[in-house]
């Protein structure tokens, strides 16, 4: 069997309908679940899963969008890096349109900065090899899914003896943000839809603190409609039975202990540090800084960056969206001045941002109004 036909079966409408019916039958009391991952938010909106829920089940987007949680100060520093002489700034595509305090990377590029979108950090290493006279900086934005590959790129640069490759690490760990949301107590959650590909790396066991410390279930989910519905059904069933457990509903891609080799490489290059999150402020032990042994490849160490008085985009409620305190349409700018073509904040830029998901799939909501039954 090829992957396409296997995936097709996780989109089977018959199975989806069966799961929706079970969710309706089981969800007798009101309950709220947060999908941590922005990829889940997009899938949920795209497939109209919210509209299929009974009125008792509320789904809420979480902070699982690496570009969105990057602080304004870090965005401004990244743009400043791009403007240094000799620098080629390499990044994943989402970052170039995120509004900094003064401008975006795209605008900096229009004024002469050399900004290049890459698919892989290894492409950035190759660029450094091809341009020994330039300094190549890679913007390391991402969670545990992405950080091991960036770590591998540093090891590769070291093996090649490259001195003109550096990473600006803004990588973050996901569990501290989940804890922060629950500790802040702004919203009440009855369960969490666990991030699938983060868990491929860290393992489903990494989420056991949710039942243990907060008494709520967590179900690690894949990204197809049947995966997500199966996850919600498991959450609803646990709440109905008064249980709270870690369940891995994405067994085809996630092991309880995660990916050891990837974790080893990640931990070899990065150490745990405090990190500044949009919407949260500084969360202790939530970020990945480059270890002193690899200082040569640490852009934060190699470059002196100017102090920039950073200011978040006026009126943007992205931080509140990331904590689940408001839904994107509650932002006064949503869909009016802020759209994917004219994004005011990162939540409207990123492919994983909740604002962009709500905007892109708003027609799904209109075409299929909640049946309320």
């Amino acid at each position, binding site marked *: 069997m090829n992957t396409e036909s*296997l995936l097709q079966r996780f989109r089977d409408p018959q199975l989806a309908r*069966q799961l929706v019916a079970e969710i309706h039958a089981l969800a007798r009391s009101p309950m709220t679940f947060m999908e941590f991952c922005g990829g889940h938010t997009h899938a949920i909106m795209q497939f109209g899963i919210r509209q299929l829920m009974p009125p008792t089940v509320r789904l809420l987007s979480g902070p699982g969008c690496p*570009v969105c949680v990057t602080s304004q100060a870090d965005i401004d520093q990244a743009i400043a890096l791009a403007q240094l002489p000799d620098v080629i700034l390499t990044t994943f595509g989402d970052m170039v349109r995120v509004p900094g305090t003064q401008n975006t990377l795209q605008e900096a590029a229009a004024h002469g900065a050399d900004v290049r979108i890459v698919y*892989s950090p290894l492409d950035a290493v190759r660029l450094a090899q091809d341009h020994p006279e330039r300094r190549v900086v890679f913007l390391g934005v991402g969670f545990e*899914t992405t950080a091991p590959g960036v770590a591998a790129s540093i090891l590769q640069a070291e093996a090649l003896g490259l001195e003109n490759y550096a990473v600006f690490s803004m990588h973050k760990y996901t569990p501290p943000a989940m804890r922060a949301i629950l500790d802040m107590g702004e919203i009440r959650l009855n369960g969490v839809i666990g991030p699938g*590909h983060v868990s*491929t790396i860290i393992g489903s066991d990494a989420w056991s603190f949710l039942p243990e410390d907060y008494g709520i279930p967590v179900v690690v989910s894949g990204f197809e409609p*049947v995966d997500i519905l199966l996850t919600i059904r498991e959450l609803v069933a646990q709440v109905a039975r008064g249980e709270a457990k870690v369940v891995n509903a994405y067994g085809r*891609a996630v092991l309880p202990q995660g990916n050891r080799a990837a974790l080893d490489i990640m931990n070899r290059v990065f150490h745990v540090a405090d990190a500044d999150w949009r919407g949260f402020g500084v969360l202790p032990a939530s970020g990945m800084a480059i270890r002193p042994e690899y200082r040569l490849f640490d852009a934060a160490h190699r470059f002196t960056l100017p102090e920039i008085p950073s200011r978040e985009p006026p009126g943007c409620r992205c931080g509140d969206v990331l904590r689940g305190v408001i839904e994107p349409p509650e932002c006064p700018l949503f869909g009016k001045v802020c759209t994917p073509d004219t994004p005011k904040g990162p939540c409207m830029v990123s492919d994983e941002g909740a604002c962009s998901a709500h905007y892109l799939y708003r027609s799904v909501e209109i075409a299929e109004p909640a049946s309320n039954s």
Partner: protein
Amino acid sequence: MCLAVPAKILHIEGHEAEVDFGGIRRTVSVQLLPQARVGDYVLVHTGFAIGLVDEEEALETLELLRQMGDLEPWEPTA
């Protein structure tokens, strides 16, 4: 950004593997997944294979779901 796409490994040489994304071929790194073998399905993220896709496990999930459907006939609510 945490998007990962399944692909089949066609060939491995050192840290590099040639993979097939349903017709499109690309070279990816298997450095983060040293246990990967030719013929395996893997999840690819930013040019790295990050996890194996366990086909049997996937089929088992689907089978379990189907059996539940058989046992408890459901009524569409719409």
